[in-house]
């Protein structure tokens, strides 16, 4: 698939899965043309439920469908999918351990135009806090395809965060995807650079720009929960310092995860992410990412800074 848009990749994959598994159903809160659940609706109208602009009801209805043996995928913008129906996901889906799949679309700052109310800076933190919830943030469209396929069989609830805008393809098509596994994208020996979602691209660019100066190991972390401490320690082994990069609040996101997982490793850790603040409107995505310091240049700066203090 040469598809670079994660949303389209998501929608096409859901259709593909729907052909293989009749128990898969989709619920939408009137954003189907954005989340691309519209593709599923077109092919399986009887298994698609348009719930109107009522996310809470959508999440609880999905819980009921799961209790009736279905595998429901629910859709909205990430800020609503994780926020508006947090209680429903916690109380019935989470406690019940139900196989509801939550698609948080237009995640992070990717809905650049709509501003703070429509941008999710804390969805990973919210979803990770629910016991038993799997949380995935793919780096590009290829990984989105692989992740959505892997989500189907998870025994319990799962959340996936999808970027609204095209991302350069950096992962291989049809590469095996294992829930919970961090992937070394480029080897290096000085700094372990952990990144998730759109920041993986920027991490790779930073590592390339630093070649000959600092040897940077780039680690893609598409699964933010469950996280295996040993695996996280293993992929950072040998590096003197650590940097994390995410399009999410530093509270409860990848930076928090890496800090906890490597807490006994005594390596300096630097963070690139959103500093306890909301998003805002912009004319384009790149401009907004720059405003919040989510750029290749900022990653390079942080790697240099950590490299300097790392013994």
């Amino acid at each position, binding site marked *: 698939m040469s598809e670079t848009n994660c949303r389209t990749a998501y929608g096409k994959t859901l259709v593909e899965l729907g052909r293989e598994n009749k128990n898969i*159903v989709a619920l939408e809160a009137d954003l189907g043309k954005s989340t691309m659940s519209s593709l599923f609706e077109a092919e399986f109208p*009887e*298994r698609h*439920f348009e*719930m*109107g602009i*009522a996310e*809470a*009801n959508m*999440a*609880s*209805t*999905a*819980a*009921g*469908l*799961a*209790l*009736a*043996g*279905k595998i*429901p995928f629910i859709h909205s913008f990430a800020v609503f999918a994780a926020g508006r129906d947090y*209680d*429903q996901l*916690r*109380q*019935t889906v989470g*406690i*019940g*351990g139900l196989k509801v799949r939550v698609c948080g679309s237009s995640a992070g700052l990717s809905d650049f135009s709509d501003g703070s109310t429509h941008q999710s800076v804390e969805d990973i933190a919210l979803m990770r806090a629910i016991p038993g919830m799997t949380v995935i943030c793919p780096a590009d469209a290829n990984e989105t395809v692989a992740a959505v396929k892997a989500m189907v069989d998870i025994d319990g609830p799962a959340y996936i965060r999808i970027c609204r805008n095209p991302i350069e393809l950096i992962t291989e098509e049809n590469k095996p995807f294992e829930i919970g596994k961090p992937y070394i994208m480029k080897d290096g020996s000085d700094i372990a650079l952990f990144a998730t979602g759109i920041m993986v691209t920027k991490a790779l660019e930073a590592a390339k720009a630093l070649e000959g100066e600092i040897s940077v190991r780039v680690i893609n972390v598409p699964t933010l929960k469950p996280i295996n401490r040993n695996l996280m320690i293993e992929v950072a082994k040998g590096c003197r310092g650590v940097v994390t990069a995410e399009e999410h609040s530093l509270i409860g996101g990848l930076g928090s995860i890496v800090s906890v997982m490597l807490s006994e490793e005594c390596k300096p850790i630097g963070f690139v992410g959103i500093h306890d603040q909301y998003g805002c409107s912009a004319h384009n995505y790149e401009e907004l990412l720059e405003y919040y310091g989510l750029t290749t240049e900022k990653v390079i700066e942080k790697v240099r800074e950590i490299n300097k203090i790392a013994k």
Partner: protein
Amino acid sequence: MSYDAETIKKLNEMAKTLRRDVVEMVGPGQAGHFGGSFSSAELITALYFSKMHYDPKNPKLADRDRFLLSKGHVAVIQYAAMARAGYFPVEELSTLKKIGSRLQGHPDVKKLPGIEANTGSLGQGLSIALGISLGLKLDNLPSRVYVLIGDGELDEGQIWEGAMAAANFKADNLVAIVDRNRIQATDFTAKRMDSGDIPAKWAAFGWNVIEIDGHDMEAVLAAYDEAETVKGKPTVIIANTVKGKGLSFAENTAAYHNGTLTEELYAKALEELK
């Protein structure tokens, strides 16, 4: 369908048994949801001991009817019904809320077979019931879904999202029962949040509305039967009830919404429910 006097008498006796079970289960000195349990005793008895198709030995029976307790705080009366129906030994009722017990303060689907969903975060049971009813329809199963909602719970906005959606999807295998006992946690509903003309509201949302005396066993059964004949829309039964019904000192007061019985009142309760 008509019911003979003997059947009605037996069901009324069962409702009394469940009330007594609740008193014994909670015991003296512990807080328990007597008020809302007792207002819904007949509504629940009629489902478990007459109306619903299920097999306590096979709680996952594919074509079973489903019961969801949206007002999950009265789990005690559902536990009593389930024990008496054979899901588990009556003796297990004494484990209520003990660490490790399957009988949690609110129904838990992972702990107790026969519970259909985790409910009790108010306002959500109707939506969950709708999801189950949609799933049953996809599988062409004839099962019916019953969900018991408190009248205080109607304050929650999600109830009305669910009501709109159930009518939209023509969920005629779904029956909502509103336990209209007119008292919520701290006072009369009319004082806390006046929900106005409840039957008119549900009718406006596109539901078939039946209003009954929720303690009249024959009327309760007739309402469940009538709901079964209505096609193309869901049915809501507005059951006018008395909070704390059956205990003289607990009737029509918010004090026993989640109240504690002294040793003296505990003995009095058991005496009244003989």
